[in-house]
Structure formats: structure tokens, C-alpha cells
């Protein structure tokens, strides 16, 4: 529908003109509208319910393996998720401590209600941003087919130069519990109707996915003595680099709320297998594709038949509620079965369920129709972010949200889009995977999806992305100056460690003995000592007499850079190779049917996807390395021809 057609409808009216209209105020929409407003654009943010802004409808937690990295990256670019997550955390841990620093991942339990309230209040006070509770039912275009505004259920027409849609799981959503199906959004909120058919009528290909969430129980009805207690940790960096700079660290562990862990029992397994015929998944009622990496408990029992039990975490939902979330126990079985399942768990025999588990089905856009800038290939000026692009998870949504917001702003400002590549961040990996490979299930971030994992660490996201955030204007000069100071201190201290030699004294021997290392015959640099297994920066303090007191994040970065030097060099080499392919651009008007030697499948895929460069072409499924060789030779031929 065009703006003109919309205004011709009965009772329709001009409601306002904005630079950017953002539809949906979940984690993607909040980041997108925040970025646009910060960049000085007149922005409006629509939500179905202002009381559920930035809702955490599933896990009351933010971060975790690879997701923690995403949050820090969003923060390094100038986003808000990190600041909010720090503010509303009730427990913080660093996952993967037993593994290497490349996969250390911060994770926080959040106060769900507080998170929503804080975000709303923050956005309400943001200049250039208008919040609006409304049900958007159509995307409007101009006469040339560019996105030009949106229309509400009440026929209010809002004009905008760019539209960002972050519809989450709301478009044409259905909630399923066994045989009971309700047309509703998550958490009893209204669903979005009409918007997806409006997108479909513009030629945007749609998909349908499903996801799910477990039950919540009242903590008064839980016997915690039968569970393993899991406390928060001290000495963890906050998500936000800006908090880290100012020394605003997470609350000490004794002020944090514990989580609990349990295992399913034989009885759990029996209840599930006895009632599998009532699962809508197996009866065929659910047509949407579910996530492999966050499966329902019945899925886990069906798919991993050799595992007799699965681990479940019992997590608090906030400081002012008794609700506890059963992580790892999502299900779409009927409510009466859910009751039996929960009661089969240790400590939950008398559990009072406050909210039942459910599966939810929703419409989304095929991400293959989206560019790396998150602008639609079909409707210019339309941007999409979050679950509408096939991802799952708050962090994945926020990561796309900030990129979509930045690029909607760039579009309005007639500037080049900002694209974060795979070597710069998990954000780049996430978006590149979605738009070049597509997905047939809700896409969850994992560290193994990143080729340059040793570089994409939670401790150096600022090094990778803060300069970009500063260049576009999301990071202010003051923060940037502090960032540069930090980078400089790391460089100076690393250099000092390489140049400072320690004599093989008894004192050093005693230190090295603690990690089974032999004393060197002559003096050895602190850096070389740190390279030895088990030797840390802190351990060497007694023999490093000129050491100045430095912040933990700086010494950690020095230690990591030194310990992994050889491996980081290998990865740098890989990144160089990668960038060489990304640099070879493919003209948009390339006619693949005229390239001799391309296989038909590759020709069709390339014609459809129109990759921007050879690197991206090489990642399209169905395009083989040999096809890329053909493409490389063809492009080189063209280049020579053009240069005469």
C-alpha cells in the first residue's frame, strides 16, 4: 500500500512525519531507535504495549557463551543493552573460566520487571525520540516502491524516510500448549496482525518459525535443599565499557541472588514419553521450525535417547517477585502434563506453577532477502532486525537492532552503510550468516560460528568497534579519549613486559615451582615467563619490582596478548586472506548467465543473491570454491578490459 492509497482510506489521517519509524520495542527496536535518536534523527518507536518494553519473555538473563560477546560489542558501538543489563543484574558470572580467554563470556541474571521499567524511562528521556503505543498493520511505500511510512490499526498514517521493523515473535503469532491453541503474542500480549501480509504483498518472502518457553514457579513452593546452589561471582567486568571506565563494577557476590541446578529424573522421562502423542510438535500441529540449539525438553529426550537425564537451572526472575524460571525445561505439552513433569523434578514436588510453558509460532522475513546493511533487497528504505530476520535471543536482536538503526540513519543522511565484517565482531558473523546463508530454524549465536574467535573476545570488543562507534557519532569524544588511553596503557605495559628481564633467583624459582616450571638458566623477560603454561601476570608480581598498579582489564589484555601471541598471529594471517576476498567487489549488474564455467546451481544462486563481493559469494551454499575461481578470473578479465 502506498501512502497516497492509505490516506484515501475511510477514517485515515496524517499522524506525523519522522525521519525513522521503528516498529516493535523489544531489544532490537530499542537499540535501533536509540541509535537513530542519538544520531540526531527525528525518530518514533511503536510498541503494542508500553508496559512490556524491552521485555525478557523467556530467560531472565542476558549474556552467556558468545552472547556475552555480542552484548559487549553492542556496548562498544555505543548501544544501550550493556548499560541496562549492568543496572538490572541480580547475579553475574563469567562462563567458561575453565577454558581459554577467547571464550570467556559474561552472563547476568536480570530483574525482568526492572529492566523493562528502566529501559522505558531511559528512552522517554532521550531527545529526538517519540514513544507510541500502537498496533502497526501496514508498511507504506512511495510511488517508486521505497518504504515511506507505516499505518496503525486506527488508520493513523505516519510518514518516515526509513522504516525499521523489529516484530519479534508477534507477527501472526499462535501460542500452543498441547491441543490448546491461542491466537496471541508471548506473555499474554496482543499479537501483530496484518503487518506480515503487508510485507508479503510487497514481494518480501516470508517464513514461519517456532520457539518456546518453560514454566515459572513460585519460590515459596520450592524445596531448595534438594538443589545445587550456584552463586554469583566477584571480579567480573561489567557488560558496559563505559561503566568499566568509570569503575562501576557489578555488585559483590554476597549481594547477588543465587541460582540453582537440578537434574531430570526417571519419572520425568516416563511422563514425557507416555504423553508424546499429545505433543503438537509430533502430532504435526506445529508447522513452524524450532531451534535445534534451544530445544524443548521433549525434543531433548527424543533426540538424545542415550541420555537418561538433562540438567535444569532454576533462576530468579527479579528482586520483587517469587517467580523462578526453569531453564532447559521449555515444552509445548498440555498444561496437565506440564504439572506432572514439574512435580517429577527434585525440590519441585509441591511446586506451584504461576505461568505455564508454551510454544509460539510466528511469521518472519527470509533473511536471504536482506542486505548486510539489514536493508531489504526488495523494498529500499525498509530495515529489519531481530527475530524477524530468523535469529533467536535478546542479544542477537540487540546486535541487529543497533546495525539496522545506524544504517537507517545513514540512509536518511545519504551516507554509506556501516557494515561490520566477520573479522570485526560476532555482530558481523551473525548478520553475514543470516543474510548470505539464510537459516531454516531460529539462529542462535555460537562461538564456533566465528572463524576468528581468538580475536573476537569479550575483553577487546572496544578495540574492535569503539573507533567505528566514534566515527559515526554514537560514542562521544570523552569516552573515546578514555578508550584511547586504555589502548595506550595496554601497549606500554606489553612493551615493558617484553623488555623487562628477571634474574633466575630463588624467589623466581619458588614462583615457578607452583606451576611446575623450571627456572631458566639466565635472565628471562617477563613476557617469556608469562608464555609458560600456568604462569600468570599476577603470579610474577613479587619479582616484577617496577610494576605500576594497573586496572584488571588492562593487565588481562596484556597477559592474553602475550600468552596467545603465536596463535593471534596465525589468526591475523587468516584475517588478511579473508579481507583480500572481501575487497574484490562484484558489480551489482553482473550477469552471471554470461560467465562461462559457472555451474548452473552457482549461477542461479549468485543471480538471486547478488553478493557484494567475492568473499560473500564464497559463503553462499551451493557456490563451490571452483565457482569462485571462475568468478575471480572473470572479474579480473573485466577489470583489465575496463582499464583498457
Amino acid at each position: 500500500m502506498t501512502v497516497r492509497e492509505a490516506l484515501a482510506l475511510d477514517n485515515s489521517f496524517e499522524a506525523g512525519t519522522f525521519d525513522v519509524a521503528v516498529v516493535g520495542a523489544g531489544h532490537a527496536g530499542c537499540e535501533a531507535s536509540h541509535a537513530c535518536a542519538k544520531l540526531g534523527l527525528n525518530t518514533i518507536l511503536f510498541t503494542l504495549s508500553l508496559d512490556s518494553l524491552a521485555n525478557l519473555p523467556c530467560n531472565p538473563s542476558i549474556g552467556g557463551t558468545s552472547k556475552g560477546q555480542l552484548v559487549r560489542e553492542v556496548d562498544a558501538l555505543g548501544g544501550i543493552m550493556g548499560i541496562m543489563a549492568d543496572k538490572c543484574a541480580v547475579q553475574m558470572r563469567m562462563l567458561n573460566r575453565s577454558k581459554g580467554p577467547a571464550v570467556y563470556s559474561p552472563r547476568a541474571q536480570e530483574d525482568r520487571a526492572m529492566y523493562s521499567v528502566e529501559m522505558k524511562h531511559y528512552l522517554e528521556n532521550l531527545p529526538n525520540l517519540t514513544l507510541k503505543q500502537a498496533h502497526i498493520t501496514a508498511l507504506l511505500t512511495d510511488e517508486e516502491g521505497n518504504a515511506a511510512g507505516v499505518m496503525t490499526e486506527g488508520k493513523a498514517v505516519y510518514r518516515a524516510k526509513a522504516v525499521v521493523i523489529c516484530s519479534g515473535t508477534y507477527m501472526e503469532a499462535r501460542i500452543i500448549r498441547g491441543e490448546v491453541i491461542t491466537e496471541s503474542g508471548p506473555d499474554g500480549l496482543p499479537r501483530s496482525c496484518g503487518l506480515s501480509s503487508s510485507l508479503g504483498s510487497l514481494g518480501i518472502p516470508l517464513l514461519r518459525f517456532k520457539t518456546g518457553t518453560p514454566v515459572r514457579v513460585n519460590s515459596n513452593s520450592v524445596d531448595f535443599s534438594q538443589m545445587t546452589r550456584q552463586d554469583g561471582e566477584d571480579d567480573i567486568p561489567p557488560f558496559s565499557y563505559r561503566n568499566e571506565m568509570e569503575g562501576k563494577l557489578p555488585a559483590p557476590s554476597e549481594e547477588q541472588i543465587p541460582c540453582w541446578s537440578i537434574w531430570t529424573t526417571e519419572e520425568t522421562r516416563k511422563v514425557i514419553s507416555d504423553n508424546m502423542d499429545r505433543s503438537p510438535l509430533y502430532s504435526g500441529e506445529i508447522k513452524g521450525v524450532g531451534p535445534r540449539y534451544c530445544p524443548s525438553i521433549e525434543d531433548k529426550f527424543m533426540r538424545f535417547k542415550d541420555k537418561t537425564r538433562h540438567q535444569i537451572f532454576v533462576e530468579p526472575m527479579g528482586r520483587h517477585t517469587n517467580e523462578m524460571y526453569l531453564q532447559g525445561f521449555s515444552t509445548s505439552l498440555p498444561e496437565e502434563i506440564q504439572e506432572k513433569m514439574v512435580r517429577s523434578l527434585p525440590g519441585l514436588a509441591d511446586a506451584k506453577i504461576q505461568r505455564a510453558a508454551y510454544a509460539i509460532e510466528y511469521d518472519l522475513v527470509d533473511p536471504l532477502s536482506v542486505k548486510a546493511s539489514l536493508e531489504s533487497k526488495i523494498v529500499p528504505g525498509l530495515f529489519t532486525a531481530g527475530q524477524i530476520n530468523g535469529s533467536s535471543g535478546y542479544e542477537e536482536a540487540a546486535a541487529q537492532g543497533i546495525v539496522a538503526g545506524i544504517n537507517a540513519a545513514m540512509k536518511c543522511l545519504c551516507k554509506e552503510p556501516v557494515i561490520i565484517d566477520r573479522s570485526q565482531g560476532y555482530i558481523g558473523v551473525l548478520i553475514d550468516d543470516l543474510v548470505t546463508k539464510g537459516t531454516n530454524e531460529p539462529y542462535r549465536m555460537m562461538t564456533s560460528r566465528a572463524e576468528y574467535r581468538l580475536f573476537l573476545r569479550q575483553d577487546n570488543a572496544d578495540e574492535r568497534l569503539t573507533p567505528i562507534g566514534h566515527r559515526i557519532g554514537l560514542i562521544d569524544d570523552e569516552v573515546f579519549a578514555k578508550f584511547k588511553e586504555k589502548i595506550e596503557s595496554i601497549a606500554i605495559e606489553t612493551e615493558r613486559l617484553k623488555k623487562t628481564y628477571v634474574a633466575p633467583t630463588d624467589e623466581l624459582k619458588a614462583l615457578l615451582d607452583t606451576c611446575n616450571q623450571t627456572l631458566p638458566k639466565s635472565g628471562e623477560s617477563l613476557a617469556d615467563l608469562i608464555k609458560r603454561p600456568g604462569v600468570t601476570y599476577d603470579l610474577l608480581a613479587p619479582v616484577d619490582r617496577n610494576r605500576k598498579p594497573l586496572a584488571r582489564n588492562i593487565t588481562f589484555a596484556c597477559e592474553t596478548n602475550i600468552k596467545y601471541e603465536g596463535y593471534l598471529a596465525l589468526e591475523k594471517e587468516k584475517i588478511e586472506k579473508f579481507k583480500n576476498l572481501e575487497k574484490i567487489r562484484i558489480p551489482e549488474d553482473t550477469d552471471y548467465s554470461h560467465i562461462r564455467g559457472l555451474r548452473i546451481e552457482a549461477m542461479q544462486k549468485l543471480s538471486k543473491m547478488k553478493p557484494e563481493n567475492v568473499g560473500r559469494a564464497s559463503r553462499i551454499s551451493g557456490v563451490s570454491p571452483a565457482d569462485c575461481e571462475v568468478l575471480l578470473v572473470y572479474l579480473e578479465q573485466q577489470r583489465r578490459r575496463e582499464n583498457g
Partner: protein
Amino acid sequence: MYSYDDEPICACSTPAGISGIAVIRISGNGCGKLADKCSVILRSSGDYKKLSELPGYTCAFGYVKDPSTDVKVDEVIFTRFEEPHSYTGEEMVEISSHGSGAVKQEILKCLGMSGIRMAYPGEFSRRAFINGKMSLASAEAVMDVINSETERQLEAAGSLMSGKLAEEIEHIEHDLYDQAAMLETFTEFDTEDPDEEEAKLEKVKDSLSDCHERLTVLCKGYGKGRILSERLRVALLGLPNSGKSTLLNTLTGFDRAIVTEVAGTTRDTIEVQLNINGIPVTLIDTAGIRETDDIIESMGIGKAYEAGRGADMIFYMIPPDMNADEAYYGVKDIIEDCDSVTAVFSKSDTGDNPYRDEIEGKLKTLGITNFISISAEEDLNIDKLEDTIIDYYQELGGGASEGLLITNSRHYTKFIKASKKLALALDALDNDLGTEVCASALRACLDEIGEVTGKTVSATLADTIFSRFCIGK
């Protein structure tokens, strides 16, 4: 990577190994002037004195000389081409020389000293292509080569890879991918059972070590593989009348095919090609020593040194009348580049060398440990000399079996890199640096192997495509 320079380049266009004549190509604008430094024109139709003055498409007779010493290297025919009407579209010179390996090497060395660098594999074709000299038909032929490889993925890196070798590499690659996947699960998910994980990690370690071992064997096989394409060079060194020629005749006189026999014009050496037990061997007789008589310290050493240099093996002839000092100083300065030197006590039919024990003692200090007493006349112990050659060849392979020989230097380079990265991956596990660190190095290793098996795309591939053409073509 994509910076195509246009510096003058040179390479030998005729196949490696010995042939009647060889053609060395030089390309790049200004290459004629550079080549003036190492060329002398003796006769040309227009009485030109310099190569660079030669009109395009004409020939001249002359010789190549060492630009630093003016010593004549080989008499040759020069042909000059003007840009853009040449194979590459640049100014070009072709040198037709004698075909022995040493001559070719020496000419390329002289060109290098004159400021003309060695071409990268396929660089001539690439320049032809870039300068629009490769016709549409040729360009299509390039595409067809690539296309045929699309269908035969295993042979993505060229036909030099044998079926068995490809299979072994696929196996190694497959095993490594399995371990990479295992490492990912350790990295990605929290363990529920630490003991089980420890056991699994041990298995990963074992498999990685095994793959490393197999890669190492493959890399060692390159030495042997190279021999298959370039022949094993065995130099016969010794004073005149020490029995070299007789031995040469005896070795070649059996029913073995003599492929070619070329008497060098500028260096008094004779090269004879023969097969010993299927091993292609070039025997080099340093005939020049004949004229220099007993002045080993002067000219003789120089010439023998040149013949010995580049040889894989040396047979050092010791006649019965040679004393220990003569034996010692006769070989001392020649053998440092050669790792297989056999001392041959010749003419044993005319009597044993009375100084034998003393000679052996002295030569042992030079690292020579293999001593054989022969009589070419009576065919005594000639088979032992042959065994020495066979053993040397077998050793080269480091246990690589015949079907698993890497003969392509690009493959070799990739596997060496892969092997180093795999060693780093193992180090990461040994030093408890974390499974993700190990996985990172392992992925880098797989990228290298992928460039041989065709699983990795890299921007260098366009270069690689042209590298698949023979050097100089």
C-alpha cells in the same frame, strides 16, 4: 597479491631435466638492456653489438657470460621480440642454450645478477592474459581447464596429484575435520562429565599427532617425488685415470637405455642418463680434471666443485696409488653441499690401495662413512654402488610409499605450512591453552590443506590458476 608488477622476469620454458636444447624466456619492458650485461653477440645479420639493439624478431649467435667475471657460460642463440607483439605483450628475449641442468641454472643465475628476477609459476601466462594477449579462445581454454576441475573436485589442484596421494590427503583432511568438530563441542558446551571429556580430549590429541605424523611423511616424500620429475644427479669425482670413465661405461654399458648424451661445450663434463631399478639417474663425469692433471688445489677443484654442486650424490674415486693427503684435500672443499658422498676405491683388480686405512680415517673426519672397493673391469662390487643409489633414494622418501609422492612444489609448500600449524595446534593442547586456541590453529591448518584439495577459496586463487600452467609457458 593483486599488485601485478611488470619487472623483467625469466624462467626456463622447456621441461625440467636434461634435453638437447633448452629455451630460457625473458619478459618485461627494458629486459633487453638488462640482459646486455650478461650477453655477448658474436654474429648477427645486421652486425649488432648488443642484444638490446637487435631488431625485433631477429636472431643472433653469441654467448651468455657471468656479468661479474665475464666468464663465458654457454654459447647460445638470442631471439628478440618487441612489445606488444610477443607472447606476453611485453619486450621479450628468448635464449636457446644447451640443455643440461647446470647450464640452465647458470644462465638463470647470470640473468638474476643482471637484474632480471625469476618468474613465479605461471607468471608469463598471467602477463599475457592481463595484457590482453591471450586470445578469446585461449581465455576460454583457461575457463575449460577450471571447469573440468569443477567436475573432478579431488584433482582441484591439478593433475600432478596421483589418486593415492589425493586419497591420503582426503583422509588426513577428514580426520582433522572430525577433531575440529570435537574441539568445537568442548568449546561450545559446558561439560557434564569432566572425566569423559578428558578421555575424549586424549583421543583428539592422539588423532592430531597421527595426522601430523602422516603430513610429515608426505612432506618428506617431496624429496623423492622431486627426483621422479627432475632425476637424481650423481657426480663422479676424481683425478684423471682414477677410473671414472671406466665406471661410467660399466654403469651405462649394461642393458640400460641411455636417454641422451650431451657433451657440454663450455664445461667439460659429460652427463649420461640411465635408470637404476626404475630410479631416473643422471651420471655426471667431471672430465675436465683430465687436463688439469695433479693441480687439484687450483682449477681442478673449481671445476669439480661446479660439477659436484647441485649433485644429490657424489662418488669419489680413489685409485690405488693415491695417498691419504691427496684423498683428503681432493674432496675436502667439494662435498659440503652434498649429503651423500661415497668413497670408491677403484681399480681393485690392479691391487689394493696401501693407504686405505689411513684414507678412511681421514675421510671419516669429513663425514664420509661409505667406502666401497670396486673393479669396473671385473664388474666387482658395481652392484654395491647401485645399492647405494637405491638406498639413498629410498631414504629420501622417509618411508613414503610410491603412490604418495608429492611432486608439486606448491603442494609441498602448503603441506609444510599445514604441518607447522598442526604442530601449533598440538602445542596448544599440551600447554593447556584451551580447546578454542587449538581449534584456531587447526582451522588455519585445514585452510592450507584446503588450498590443495580445493576446499578453501583464497584471493590467491586467480594467481594459482595461472600457476597451474608450466612455469615459463
